[in-house]
């Protein structure tokens, strides 16, 4: 479980996070949603330790991030898998080498053991005939699968995804969403996804944290999100015509 208590972060005079308090549960897909500029990415980067909060506490299963020295942080990071918005695959490496990278860096596995594990995770993310291709030869969806494979190859306890659906078509987005959700449940990891895609919310959102202008405006489950009267949430959710229709049909059913 990841605990966030009263986290604040400013850049110059701009206060981006204004006292965020929440928890991200193990074995659950936790989504951070909100409009662009709401502080989602800053919160995610604060969780990852890329940004240091001005105040507040972030703890990973009781281990407080701000109390760790640089070695302890690096140790913690070996327990973290991250899927970046642009996949962030290493251009100079093949798919196989990208996925094997964390194992080569942080384990004492033999080349045969690494090969076996890499083949397993590449199969797990349903990548076919891509082992020896370079990232530039792959489609956006395939790159995301490689990024997920790389993120889970070293059995992380925590998985972070920044806009995993950006640039993907709706069908591929759903496949990627479901893949992340399946992996979360299968390996019992704490997954935190940063998104503004309402389809993802409906597909895989076990817990949803809604940010508005750096404030945690609402949190709940995907079932709750359609019932809430929180104006900030309804403004965001029903900005899509599709969800307006869902809302109307739900209201009719209630009547």
């Amino acid at each position, binding site marked *: 479980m990841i605990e966030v208590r009263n986290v604040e972060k400013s850049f110059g005079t701009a206060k981006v996070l204004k006292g965020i308090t929440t928890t991200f549960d193990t074995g659950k897909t936790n989504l951070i949603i909100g409009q662009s500029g709401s502080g989602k990415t800053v919160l995610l980067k604060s969780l990852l330790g*890329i940004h240091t909060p001005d105040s507040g506490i972030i703890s990973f299963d009781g281990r407080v991030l701000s109390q760790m020295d640089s070695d302890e942080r690096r140790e913690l990071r070996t327990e973290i898998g991250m899927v970046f918005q642009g996949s962030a695959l290493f251009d100079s490496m093949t798919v196989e080498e990208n996925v094997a990278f964390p194992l*080569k*860096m942080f384990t004492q596995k033999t080349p045969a053991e690494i090969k076996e594990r890499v083949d397993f995770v590449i199969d797990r993310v349903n990548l076919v005939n891509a082992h020896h291709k370079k990232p530039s030869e792959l489609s956006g969806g395939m790159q995301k699968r490689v990024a997920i494979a790389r993120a889970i190859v070293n059995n992380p306890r925590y998985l972070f995804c920044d806009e995993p659906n950006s640039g993907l078509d709706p069908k591929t987005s759903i496949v990627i969403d479901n893949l992340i959700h399946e992996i979360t449940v299968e390996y019992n990891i704490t997954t935190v996804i940063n998104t503004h895609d309402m389809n993802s919310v409906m597909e895989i959102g076990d817990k949803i944290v809604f940010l508005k202008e750096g404030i945690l405006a609402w949190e709940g489950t995907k079932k709750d999100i359609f019932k809430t009267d929180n104006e900030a949430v309804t403004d965001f959710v029903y900005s899509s015509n599709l969800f307006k229709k869902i809302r109307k049909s739900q209201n009719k059913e209630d009547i």
Partner: protein
Amino acid sequence: MILLRYLTHIGRYFLMIREVFVKPTKWSVMRGLIFKEIDDLVIDSLGIVCFISFFVGGVVSIQTALNLTNPLIPKYLIGFATRQSVILEFAPTFISIIMAGKMGSFITSSIGTMRVTEQIDALEVMGVNSLNYLVFPKMVALILYPFVIGISMFLGILGGWMGGVYGGFTTSAQFIQGIQTEFIPFHIAYAFIKTIMFAFLLATIPSYHGYYMKGGALEVGKASTVSFVWTSVVVILSNYILTQLLLA
């Protein structure tokens, strides 16, 4: 304000150098990276270095010959001037300036692209010391840089010999006599001391500009240009300081 900005860059550059040596990457991985950098930075530079050195050596020889209009000045001075120019300045300093463009822009753009595409963030999030992973292999690879400069010296003098002899400006015996005249072995040591210093600058200044760049693809191009300018400036300044310290 400008002074403060320069001081900030200088301070951050030295902090970067310190960070390069903290938490080293696993040797089995680092070994592969070093060989890759040797290939990218040293081997790939040999062609252009050989080409430029040979022809510039030839030009130095011809230019010297054309300026020796007084018949009292011995022709062996063509070989002497070529040797001195090539060994003392052309090979170590001017090849380094050319390498600031060739190697330097390669280093800045490759690291800068990794920054823009979040690959450096990916390394950091995984718990890898990205500075050690990216910069240290370049520093080690450029230990071979004096080897490149050695080849440049040899080809520069060979080009001078061919330009002088086959251009009909001097005889082979006169040119070789000039090469041997008043030869001071310390000049070779001086040239290689400079080369080692320049190798360090060539590996680290472009890395600094790539690593700390902000923005997108356009900024990668700008960072490469700025990196070339600053590497050249620092190479020239350190050339002056080392010459003052070692020869004056």
